[in-house]
């Protein structure tokens, strides 16, 4: 799938030929730095792109391609099939409507046959699983804290039992303790709701805790994908490796960071987009775009370090030496 944002000059290639699969009840983590396009991908799937953005390609759901579906059809899918939880919970609820009204509106929109009692029962049940007591059902959004509002948002998304829930940095604006609670809830999804979850985040730690598989995104492309354990223990892509080295733990003696900054998506670096910052860059990396390589255990990676050998020209494997790393291409 591709999602581009229009600008007065050339378009911003926010999502450039991304390919992902996610199965029922599976939790897939999508990791990447700010501005790498992961939020755009999440929104693009639901067709919630802002004005001036366009998408292209295929998003296959239940045999249908969501890209290019007319508004009405996509809208019917949003809610009962596809759910989205946003990053900033403070402003996502209508301040003039009670929580009860939010739920009633959502349920009445998609399941008009339900009567009042059923609506209330289902809402309270879902809220209960999120830890929100029924006594607060008739309160207004401003009476809840950030963490609780996020839980309400998740409940609102789940009350319709969607098949796929996309969580776009759901805990980024919350403190660590609340984050733990939310993650626990999200992890339970497959037990209680059998919902597939696409968890978008920039925090590797969350992914390690909650996800089955992980996809690492850089500059609009997926550079590595596979089961979480393997990606952690044996990262295939240099970017993944560097990201893991940058995380801080009690054992950290020295801070490690990746020099440079993510590239400008209007005009990304030619060939491999990570090459200006990659410590393992080779000759071929600056002349030919890498080709996706499948590895064992259902992993895949987008890096010349893993081949395919036959595509690498003569002398291409020579390591690049003495280069100024990536300041020129800052976004």
């Amino acid at each position, binding site marked *: 799938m591709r999602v581009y944002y229009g600008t007065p000059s050339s378009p911003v290639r926010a999502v450039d030929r991304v390919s992902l699969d996610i199965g029922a009840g599976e939790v897939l983590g999508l990791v990447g730095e700010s501005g790498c396009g992961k939020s755009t991908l999440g929104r693009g799937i639901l067709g919630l792109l802002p004005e001036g953005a366009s998408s292209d390609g295929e998003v296959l759901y239940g045999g249908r391609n969501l890209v290019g579906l007319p508004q009405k059809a996509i809208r019917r899918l949003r809610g*009962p099939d596809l759910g989205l939880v*946003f990053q900033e919970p403070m402003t996502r609820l*209508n301040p*003039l409507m009670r929580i009860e009204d939010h739920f009633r509106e959502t349920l009445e929109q998609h399941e008009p046959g339900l009567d009042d009692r059923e609506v209330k029962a289902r809402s309270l049940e879902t809220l209960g699983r999120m830890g929100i007591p029924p006594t607060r059902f008739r309160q*207004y959004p401003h009476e809840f804290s950030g963490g609780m509002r996020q839980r309400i948002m998740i409940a609102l998304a789940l009350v319709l039992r969607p098949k796929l829930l996309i969580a776009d940095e759901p805990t980024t604006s919350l403190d660590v303790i609340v984050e733990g609670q939310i993650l626990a809830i999200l992890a339970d999804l497959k037990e209680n709701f059998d919902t597939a979850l696409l968890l978008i985040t920039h925090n590797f730690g969350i992914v390690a805790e909650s996800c089955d598989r992980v996809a690492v995104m850089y500059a609009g492309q997926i550079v590595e994908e596979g089961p979480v354990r393997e990606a952690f223990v044996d990262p295939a892509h240099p970017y993944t490796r560097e990201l893991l080295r940058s995380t801080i733990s009690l054992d950290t003696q020295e801070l490690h960071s990746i020099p440079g900054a993510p590239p400008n998506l209007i005009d990304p670096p030619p060939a491999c987009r990570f090459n200006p910052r990659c410590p393992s860059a080779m000759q071929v990396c600056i002349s030919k775009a890498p080709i996706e390589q499948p590895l064992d255990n259902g992993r895949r990676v987008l890096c010349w370090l893993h081949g395919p050998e036959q595509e690498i020209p003569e002398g291409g494997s020579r390591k690049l030496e003495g280069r100024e790393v990536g300041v020129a291409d800052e976004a």
Partner: protein
Amino acid sequence: MAAQGTSLRKYLLTRLGLVIPMVLILLTIVFLLMRVAPGDPISASLGGHAPQSVINQIKHQLGFDKPLYTQYWDYLSGIARGDFGTTITDHRKLTDIIKVNGAATLELTFFAMLIAVAVGVFVGLVAGRFRDTPLDVGGRLFGIVVYATPVFFLGLMGQLVFGVWLNWLPTSDRASPITQATFQTHTDIFTLDAIIGGQWSALGDIVKHLILPATTLGLATAGIFIRLIRVNVIRTLKDDYIEAARARGITERSVVYHHAFKNALVPVITIVGLNMALLLGGAVLTETTFNWPGIGHALVTYLENRDYTAVQGIIVVFALVVVAVSVLIDFLNAYIDPRIRY
């Protein structure tokens, strides 16, 4: 529910408390302006030719020869008692003038405000919803032109077209002479009295007289509504909860009507309050154009006759009304938007 009630009450009390300094300031400014202003009020109001002895007598009668701070105290205590003074030129009590003329102005401004809100909100909502389409452009242009049209010009044209050329509507006064002679009034609000008393033929005549002035004043003030509502609709449609609602699959129609419009209309009450000043100013002009016997008309007449006491009294009334409206608006706002009170 009980918790809601007490916090609302508390808010109202706090708000009322804040009003006192504002009222005092306005009253003081009016007093100072009238007393300290150049020119002698008494001789001016008597036409400038009265002999000194008469002037001195009247000055003594009205208390103008007392020291300034005594006059100030009398002035304030009078107002607190509800006594706004007596006019110099025709010896009427201000309170009577306020009661009779005030009712006329109240009736006029009430209906004008209704029209302003109806037209303004409707056009504003449509323009905001269909932003940048011909509907939006047309709505905005309409709002601008209507604002640019002085209310007395609009009135004049209305009188020409509907009064003189088409002869459909009367062009002055509150009711025809016949009705005025036979009409029974208790509150001086003619429409109200007509409905209560079941005087249906009189009601028809009264309404006919109301149409031109109220529509003129209403249209002239609708412009502000159009602009503010439109901007608010656009702003609301950008809010995060709108996007979240769309993500839940709520139809665009529902999103627009139940979320955007409702939230965009929250400040309508405030806008009405802000518009009150414009409306009162416009009322003065409308009453002059249509010979409507309201407070504005009285003000203009007394100004012409240089009747300082009358002018002072009427301005004081305007000041009190402005402050009262502002408190009322805040209170209504607190009622509608739960965030304000807590």
